[in-house]
C-alpha cells in the first residue's frame, strides 16, 4: 500500500460520517452501526498493510502531499507516515473498530442510534487527521476536531442537564489548554518560519536556544495537559463520563486523551533542547498519577473509578515522555488503550445489564450472571495492576525502570510512580471485587443478564490483546523499540537499565507493589459490606476527601469560575449596559426629546403653514431692503 493511498484511512470514516449524517436515520438500526464499523475497520486494514515496511524494519518515514493549503507557512494537508504515526493509527482504528462494534449492542434501542455512529466516525476521522498530520497546522486541525467530537459525544444525551453541563465543561477546560497550544504554534512559526514537522525537527538544534525551546515545550505541555487531563486541567475528564460508555472507552480512555502524549513524543526534537520542560512534564505526570490514583480509591461510581484511573495512567505516560523515555510512553499508551478500553466496555456491559445502575455499592455477585464480562475485566484489572506477564506489566515496568535509570530528581518521581502502582492495583481490584464478588446488593427488580454477542466479542478480543499486547516489547525482545527507532533518530532517549539483574530487581519491586495492592483490596472487599465500610471509615477524614475528589471542583468554582462570572457580570451590567448601550441610547434620546418639543409646530392647519411661509418671506424681503445682501 503506497503512502499516496493513505488519505483513504482518514477519508473512509469521514465519508461514513457524512453518509450517516444524511441517511443514518433512514437506514436505521443496526445497519448504520455496521456501516460505521466497516468504514473504520477498512481503515485499520489499510493502515496494517501500509505499516508492513516498518514491521519488516529499515523503512523510513515518508510524507505525501494531498493539497497545498497554506504553503507559505508550511501548512498543507500532508500525511506523514512513520512508525509512530503507524502505531497510533493502528491503535486508533483497531481499538476504535472494536468499540464501534460494541456500541452496536450498547446503543441498541437509542432514538438517535444513527447519529451516534455519525459522531463516532467523525471522531475517528478527526483523530486520524491528528496522528497522520505532517505539520503542526494539520495536527491542530485534528486536535480541535477531536475536541468538538468529544463535546458532541459527552453531551450526546443532551436532555440530561448534567450531560450538557459536562460537555460544556470539557470544552471550556480544553480551550484553556488549546490557548497554550496555539501560542506554542505561533512561537514555532516565528522561530522556524514554517509549521511542517520536517522543517522544524531537522533545524531545531541550530535555530532554537534553550529559552525558546523551553517556552515552546512548556506551552505544549499546557495544551497537552488540557487534552490529556493532567493536573491542573484534569477536572473535565471525570465529568465526561456522562457520555455513553463506548464514548468513554474510545475517546476518554483509549485515543483522544492520549493526544497530549503523542504531541510531546512527536515534538521530541524540541524537548531534546529543553531539559527543564521535559522535567516539568515528568513532574506534572507523576503528580497527576498519584493525585488521581488516590481519588480513584474512594469512588463509588464504576465509571468514575475508571475515569480517575485513566487520568492516573495518563500521568504515567507523561512521566515517561517527560523522562525522554518516549518508547516506554508510547508503549504504555498502546497497552493502556487495550486494557482501559476493555475495562470501560466491561463497565458498559455491567451498566447495561444493571439497567443503568452505576453505583458499585449496589452491585456485587455479578460473576455468575455475566462470566465473560467478569473474566475479561478481571484480566484487564490484573493487566493494569502490573501483574506479569500481562500487557500492563511490561509497559509500566519499562516506564518505572527508565525513570529510575535517569536518577537525581527522577528517583523521587520513581518512588511516586511505585506508590501509584500499588494504589492502582488496590483500586482496580476493589472495583472488580465490589462488582463481581460478594453477596448481591442489587436494588429491587434488578435482573442482570449476559451481554449480547456483539458486545462480548470485542471484550474477548481486547482481553487477548491485554494479555499478549505487552510481549511486543519485553527486555528480552525489544520489537517495539526497534520499530519506533527511526522516529527519534539523533535524539537522546532514556532506556531502561541494561542487564537482567536490574530488570529482576525493578520488575520485582513493581510486581511486589502490584501484588500488595491486589491482595489488600481482595482481603478487604471480599468480606461483607459492613466490614469494608468500617475499613473505609477508618481512613476518615482522608477517605471523605478522596471520595469528594479533594473538592477540586468546589475550589475551582470558588477561585476561578465565580470570579470569572463576577467579571462577566460587571462587564455586562456594569460597563456594557450603562456605558456602551447608554451612549447609543443617549444620542437617540436627545433627538427623540428634540422632536417632541418641535412637534407642536406641525398643527395640520394649512393656514398656519401659509402664515409662517409668508412671515418668512417678509423677513427675507425686509432683510434685503435693510441692505443685508
Amino acid at each position, binding site marked *: 500500500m503506497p503512502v499516496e493511498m493513505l488519505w483513504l484511512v482518514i477519508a473512509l470514516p469521514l465519508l461514513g460520517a457524512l453518509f450517516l449524517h444524511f441517511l443514518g436515520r433512514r437506514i436505521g438500526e443496526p445497519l448504520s452501526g455496521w456501516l460505521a464499523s466497516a468504514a473504520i475497520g477498512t481503515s485499520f486494514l489499510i493502515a496494517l498493510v501500509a505499516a508492513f515496511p516498518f514491521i519488516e524494519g529499515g523503512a523510513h518515514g515518508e510524507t505525501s502531499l494531498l493539497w497545498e493549503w497554506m504553503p507559505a507557512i508550511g501548512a498543507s494537508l500532508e500525511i506523514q507516515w512513520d512508525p509512530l504515526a503507524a502505531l497510533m493509527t493502528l491503535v486508533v482504528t483497531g481499538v476504535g473498530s472494536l468499540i464501534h462494534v460494541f456500541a452496536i449492542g450498547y446503543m441498541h434501542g437509542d432514538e438517535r442510534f444513527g447519529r451516534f455512529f455519525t459522531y463516532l466516525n467523525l471522531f475517528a476521522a478527526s483523530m486520524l487527521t491528528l496522528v497522520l498530520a505532517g505539520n503542526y497546522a494539520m495536527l491542530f486541525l485534528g486536535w480541535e476536531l477531536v475536541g468538538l467530537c468529544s463535546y458532541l459525544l459527552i453531551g450526546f444525551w443532551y436532555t440530561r442537564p448534567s450531560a450538557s453541563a459536562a460537555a460544556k465543561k470539557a470544552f471550556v477546560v480544553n480551550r484553556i489548554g488549546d490557548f497554550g497550544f496555539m501560542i506554542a504554534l505561533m512561537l514555532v512559526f516565528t522561530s522556524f518560519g514554517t509549521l511542517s514537522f520536517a522543517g522544524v525537527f531537522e533545524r531545531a538544534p541550530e535555530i532554537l536556544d534553550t529559552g525558546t525551546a523551553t517556552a515552546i515545550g512548556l506551552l505544549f505541555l499546557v495544551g497537552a495537559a488540557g487534552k490529556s487531563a493532567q493536573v491542573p486541567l484534569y477536572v473535565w475528564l471525570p465529568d465526561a463520563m456522562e457520555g455513553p460508555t463506548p464514548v468513554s472507552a474510545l475517546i476518554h480512555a483509549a485515543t483522544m486523551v492520549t493526544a497530549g502524549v503523542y504531541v510531546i513524543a512527536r515534538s521530541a526534537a524540541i524537548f531534546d533542547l529543553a531539559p527543564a520542560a521535559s522535567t516539568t512534564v515528568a513532574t506534572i505526570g507523576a503528580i497527576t498519577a498519584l493525585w488521581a490514583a488516590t481519588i480513584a480509591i474512594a469512588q463509588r461510581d464504576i465509571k468514575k473509578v475508571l475515569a480517575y484511573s485513566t487520568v492516573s495512567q495518563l500521568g504515567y505516560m507523561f512521566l515517561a515522555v517527560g523522562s525522554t523515555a518516549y518508547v516506554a510512553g508510547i508503549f504504555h499508551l498502546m497497552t493502556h488503550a487495550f486494557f482501559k478500553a476493555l475495562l470501560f466496555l466491561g463497565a458498559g456491559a455491567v451498566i447495561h445489564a444493571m439497567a443503568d445502575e452505576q453505583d458499585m455499592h449496589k452491585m456485587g455477585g455479578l460473576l455468575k450472571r455475566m462470566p465473560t464480562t467478569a473474566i475479561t475485566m478481571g484480566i484487564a484489572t490484573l493487566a493494569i495492576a502490573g501483574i506479569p506477564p500481562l500487557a500492563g506489566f511490561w509497559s509500566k515496568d519499562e516506564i518505572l525502570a527508565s525513570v529510575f535509570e535517569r536518577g537525581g530528581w527522577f528517583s523521587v518521581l520513581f518512588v511516586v510512580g511505585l506508590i501509584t502502582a500499588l494504589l492502582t492495583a488496590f483500586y482496580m481490584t476493589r472495583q472488580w471485587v465490589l462488582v463481581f464478588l460478594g453477596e448481591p446488593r442489587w436494588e429491587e427488580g434488578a435482573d442482570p443478564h449476559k451481554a449480547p454477542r456483539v458486545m462480548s466479542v470485542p471484550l474477548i478480543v481486547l482481553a487477548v490483546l491485554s494479555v499478549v499486547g505487552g510481549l511486543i516489547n519485553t527486555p528480552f525482545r525489544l520489537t517495539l523499540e526497534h520499530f519506533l527507532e527511526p522516529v527519534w533518530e539523533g535524539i537522546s532517549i532514556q532506556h531502561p537499565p541494561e542487564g537482567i539483574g536490574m530488570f529482576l530487581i525493578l520488575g520485582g519491586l513493581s510486581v511486589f507493589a502490584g501484588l500488595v495492592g491486589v491482595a489488600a483490596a481482595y482481603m478487604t472487599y471480599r468480606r461483607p459490606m459492613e466490614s469494608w465500610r468500617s475499613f473505609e471509615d477508618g481512613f476518615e477524614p482522608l477517605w471523605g476527601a478522596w471520595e469528594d475528589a479533594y473538592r477540586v471542583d468546589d475550589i475551582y468554582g470558588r477561585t476561578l469560575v465565580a470570579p470569572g462570572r463576577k467579571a462577566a457580570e460587571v462587564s455586562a451590567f456594569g460597563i456594557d449596559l450603562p456605558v456602551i448601550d447608554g451612549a447609543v441610547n443617549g444620542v437617540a434620546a436627545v433627538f427623540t426629546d428634540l422632536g417632541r418639543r*418641535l*412637534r*407642536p*409646530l*406641525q*398643527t*395640520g*392647519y*394649512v*393656514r398656519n403653514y*401659509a*402664515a409662517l411661509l*409668508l412671515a418668512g418671506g417678509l423677513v427675507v424681503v425686509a432683510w434685503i431692503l435693510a441692505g443685508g445682501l
Partner: protein
Amino acid sequence: MVDPSWYMTLAAVLFVIGALGMLSRRNALVMFMCIELMLNAVNLTLISAGRAMNDLNGQVATFFILVVAAAEVVVGLAIIVAIFRRRSTASVDELNEMSG
C-alpha cells in the same frame, strides 16, 4: 406710457389680496384661487419690470410660470375633487390629520 410703478402697485395689491385670502378662507378651492392670484401678481411684476428695463427675460419667466401653474392646477384640482368625493367637504380645517 404709464409709469411702471402703477403696475407694481396693482401687483402688490393683488398679491396682498391673495395672501390675506389664503390666510382667512377655509375652502380649499378658494384658497387655490388665492394662490393663482398671487402667482399672477408676480407675473405682472415680472412683465412690467421687464418692459421698464427693456428686457425680454421678464416675459420668458412669466411663460414658464404660466405653464407650471397650469400643470399645478391640474394636479391640485384633482386632489381637491378627490378629497371632496371622500369627505363631502373641502374645508381645510377639517383636514388636519397631519398635525404633530
